[in-house]
Structures are given as C-alpha cells and as structure tokens.
C-alpha cells in the first residue's frame, strides 16, 4: 500500500540490517541525498548497496561507506577523483566490490523488475569481467550470462508524484530511478512536488504508481 510519510526518517525507518538497497542517481543528478542521509541516521548496517558509483566527496553514500555501514557495493564506476572513502575501505579489505559494466548493471536491474531471471549479452565478452561466467554464441556473437539484481529497498528521487504514486522525473535525473523502482520490494521516493491524482498526463507518466510504496516531499 502506498503511503506518504511526513519525513525522510519516517520513510526509511523500516530498512533493516543486511538489506540490499538500490540508490538512484548518476553523479548528483537524481541522487536522493535526503533519503541517503536518513538511511545513515536510521542505523541500518551490513548493507549491500547498488548504485552507479561508490560515493563521492564527504556526503551521501560516501558517508555510509565511511561509517562502515556498507558491506558490499554493486556498481560500475567506483573509482573517482573524490571516492576517497570507498578507496580507503576497499584497500583495507573492508568492503566487497562487484564491478559490473554500466549497461549490464542497468539491464540486470531492469530484469529483476521485469521477471527475467537472467540474460545473455555481448557486453563484457572476452574481458576479465566475464571470467568464470557462462558464455554462448547467439545472433552470431559471443555473449555472457548475467542474472537479475533484486533489492529489498530502492531509494530514488523524482520530480513530481500524484496521489496514486505515479512519477515523472526531470531531464537526466531520471537515470536509474524507473528501473530501481521496479526492481525493489519496497520503493521509497523523494519528490519536489506532490500533485492531486489526475494532474499528471497519463501519456507522460514514467513510473506508474504500482512500483511505488512511499513518497516523501523534500523541500
């Protein structure tokens, strides 16, 4: 059932130790900073986090990592000029990394939401990221078997929600939001606006409310 918590802290209160948490965003665009801060506050640990990166600077996901809340990262691009907290944990052997080509990451997340257990894709074929993975020739090309990535919780950011939980996004801040919303058992969304049901044009809704559990307005 859809609910509308008053605060981000209330929204994330149910996230438990050991959960797999998908966090939307690419760079700062679409990052649900307030929900990540609330996740920090709520104290959940031993998290597996799915995000394109592994935290930047001294905010958001980087703080979760620094504070030892994340036992494993599933991401495509952990190393950045300002990923020092991840870098330190990784070199210290205190965080596990599953490195996934970005398109495989997106497709594996999409697969979870779409009821696909696994798929074959040419991306990564013949590279060290396919080592130990099943391969076969399909459509005349070498392809690698990849499985769905499911999550307990998704934390995402959208622009506007209506009373049914339908969402629209803004520009490139859309990125992982729609597929993570579909892949998680419980999807929590921070939005800038909540409008009455019927105010969003049905042709333009990107994430139907069926994928959304909690919506919280962030100023």
């Amino acid at each position: 059932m859809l609910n509308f918590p008053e605060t981000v802290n209330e929204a994330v209160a149910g996230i438990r130790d050991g959960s797999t948490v998908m966090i939307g965003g690419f760079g700062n665009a679409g990052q649900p900073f307030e929900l990540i801060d609330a996740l920090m506050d709520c104290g959940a640990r031993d998290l597996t986090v799915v995000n394109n990166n592994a935290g930047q600077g001294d905010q958001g996901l980087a703080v979760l990592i620094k504070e030892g809340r994340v036992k494993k990262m599933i991401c495509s691009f952990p190393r950045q000029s300002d990923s020092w907290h991840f870098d330190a944990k990784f070199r210290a052997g205190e965080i596990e990394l599953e490195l996934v080509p970005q398109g495989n990451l997106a497709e594996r997340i999409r697969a979870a939401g779409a009821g696909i257990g696994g798929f074959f894709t040419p991306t990564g074929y013949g590279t060290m990221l396919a080592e130990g993975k099943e391969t076969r020739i399909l459509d005349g090309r070498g392809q690698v078997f990849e499985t769905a990535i499911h999550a307990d919780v998704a934390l995402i950011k959208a622009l506007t929600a209506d009373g049914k939980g339908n969402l629209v996004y803004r520009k490139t801040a859309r990125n992982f939001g729609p597929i993570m919303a579909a892949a998680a058992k419980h999807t929590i969304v921070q939005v800038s606006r909540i409008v009455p049901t019927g105010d969003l044009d049905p042709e333009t809704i990107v994430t139907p409310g069926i994928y959304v559990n909690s919506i919280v307005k962030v100023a």
Partner: protein
Amino acid sequence: MSIQSNGQAGIHAGIHAGIQTSDKPLGRDDLARLVARDITSGSFVNLGIGQPTLVSNYLEPEQNITLHTENGMLGMGPEATGGQIDGDLINAGKIPVTELPGASYFHHADSFAIMRGGHLDICVLGAFQVSATGDLANWHTGAPDAIPAVGGAMDLATGAKDVFVMMTLLTREGVSKLVETCTYPLTGVGCVTRIYTDKAVFLTGPDGVQVRETFGCTLEELQAMVPVPLTAASAAGT
C-alpha cells in the same frame, strides 16, 4: 472441524459461522460480487477476458482498486459507452473502455513487465481445469484440430502474486473442473491460489484443497462432485 450448513439464505454473510454461506449455487453476478469484495483495498488487479471482467462491476470506489490491462494501461475505468468510445482506448478483450484519474499508459514490454515481474496483487482468470496443486489449464482444449491461441494467459498465471480462478465447478456434462491432474494443456504450474465457483470457494496451497465456503451444498455433497480430497478451511485461512 465440524462441517455444517448454517441454513442462511442469500450469499455470504461475512461471518464464517458455517461453511455453507448460500442456500443455492451462486450466479455469475453473485460470484463476481463475492470476488470483488475479497479483493484487498489498494490492490493492483488484472481481470481476464470473459467472466472475470464482471468483477469490475462490483468494485467499490472506496476499495481504491487499480485495474491493469495487458495492452498497456493502469487505471482502466468501466466500459465506454456512447460518446466515450475511443478506438485507441480498449482493454485486452478489445472492448472500448475509459480512463480513470491517475491512469498511465506504457508499451507492451513495460506492460508485461508489470505482469511478469510479480507486481500485480491479483489476477482473476477463467479456467477449463484447475488441479489440486494449483496447476491451471485455460488456454487450449488440446483437441488435435484446434488452432491454439495463448495471449497473455501464461504471463498472468505465472506473474501475479495471487491467481484467482472463476469458473463453474462442473462442465455441462457434469464433470468436475477441479481435478487431481489437468488433462488439458497447462497454462501455469502451481499458480492458482483460489478458485471461485458457483458451488464453492476453494483455496489451493501446500495444505491441499481447502473449502472456504459452499453455496447450496454441504461439504459432503461438494466432495461427492469433486475427485480431490477437500478439507474445510479455518476462518483464518481466508
């Protein structure tokens, strides 16, 4: 567990004082009303073509049910009439329908992702046969000269969290459609969770086939019609 009729006339009284909640078999509309009332408020539901479509007539606005149609829509409203009819707005049965506030449209892969990804709370389907373990047969008679057509039946049967079947319990020839093992080709394996029939509501699951209520017959009379072992469900099991 004692099995007895409470002798009450009319349909389901909402209290499981006895397992027989109607003194006669239910008609299609009464059955649709019963299914509608059993749908948890706030659910996302897909109603199959034919008899299941009747359920939409009995959903109350307070239930806040969102209907999905496989051809790309959530928030489907009632059948369109008169000037509402729009050739671009149809349901899975190709019947013109309407759009409710909060509706959304999406393409076929996204629509089936909703079904296949386990996001629908309930789908309601017709059936030729349902087995004691919840196998469903509803797409093909298996007749050698039949032209098969499957549509979205397998996706719904496999994908929805709960699969409710609506059917008459017996064929025109008086043979039970609830069977030990389906003889018709399967639509899905072990997928049906409830069977709504004119004579009884059955729950299928790990505990075998349980009878939630009967209409116009006792459990003993029902057992005589059905070739699988039946037990009465506890009220908690509904």
